[in-house]
């Protein structure tokens, strides 16, 4: 497994472990590619999909993820906390240090 793939798995785990995170949304390109495959697929079928985008650039690593949060805690707080957790996790990863961590809240509640 590449360093990026390892990091993807670790970050996804960290993010989903946050009790205020309800869901990680697949990336836009993933949606486009699999859109119709999902339609009509058997419910509860699991699949591998890139749910975080990690790219290594000359300035450092960029991470981006799109999430849905629960409504109990302020979405802004949850979002900031996730950034911090991702940053912490990446400090111990073998990829270059992050230059950008983008967390997008796509739904609340």
């Amino acid at each position, binding site marked *: 497994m590449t360093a990026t793939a390892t990091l*993807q*798995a670790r970050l*996804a*785990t960290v993010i989903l472990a946050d009790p205020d995170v*309800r*869901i*990680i*949304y*697949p990336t836009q390109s993933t949606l486009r590619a699999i859109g119709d495959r*999902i339609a009509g*697929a058997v*419910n*509860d*079928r*699991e*699949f*591998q*999909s890139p*749910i975080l985008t990690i790219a290594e650039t000359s300035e450092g690593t960029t991470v981006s993820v799109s999430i*849905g949060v*629960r*409504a109990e805690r302020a979405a802004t707080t949850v979002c900031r906390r996730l950034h911090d957790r991702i940053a912490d996790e990446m400090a111990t990863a073998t990829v270059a240090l992050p230059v950008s961590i983008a967390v997008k809240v796509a*739904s*609340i*509640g």
Partner: protein
Amino acid sequence: MAVKANDRTWLPAAAAVPDGRLREAHDRVVAGRAADGDPHAFEVLVRRYSTLMRVYARSILGTNDEADDVVQEAFVTAWQQLDSLEDPGVVKSWLMRIVSRRSIDRLRARREHEDIIDYDPPAEAASSPAQMVQARSLADAVGTALASLPAGQRRCWLLKEVAEYSYREIAADLDVPESTVRGLISRARVNMAREMQAWR
């Protein structure tokens, strides 16, 4: 790391108004909400208008199976274009126009090498006065009159009188001269009126 592909997880968890309340709301509220992206509201629209759209599509296409597909496609298109609808209150006629367009597309695909207007499958037997007398209601009588029209007349009639297309739009979509459309609609009107004369 796997993510469940269950489509339920992709829906916004909140904003699930008890179905009863949303089902009773006016078109404008439901369509406005759907235009903003609420799939629950969109589903209310689907359930509210799919049957009418199906009846209409069937009347244009002449078959049931294609009508179901056409209505499905119309709703998928509607979702994509809903936020461009300026007045959510007119969503019903807007949906009828979309299903009209889809029906015409299907007609064109069906008969690539034939003139859509000239192709007239044998019309259902024109109602005899006796049959008309047996029609239980005015709605039945009109329905029978409609069904007895040759297909070209019926299509133009529906596009104009139900979907509110203009003559120019019908002509452009069916790829025939406007004068042909006028003639068909005039004949349709006269034929229907005459059929109705037999109803008492």
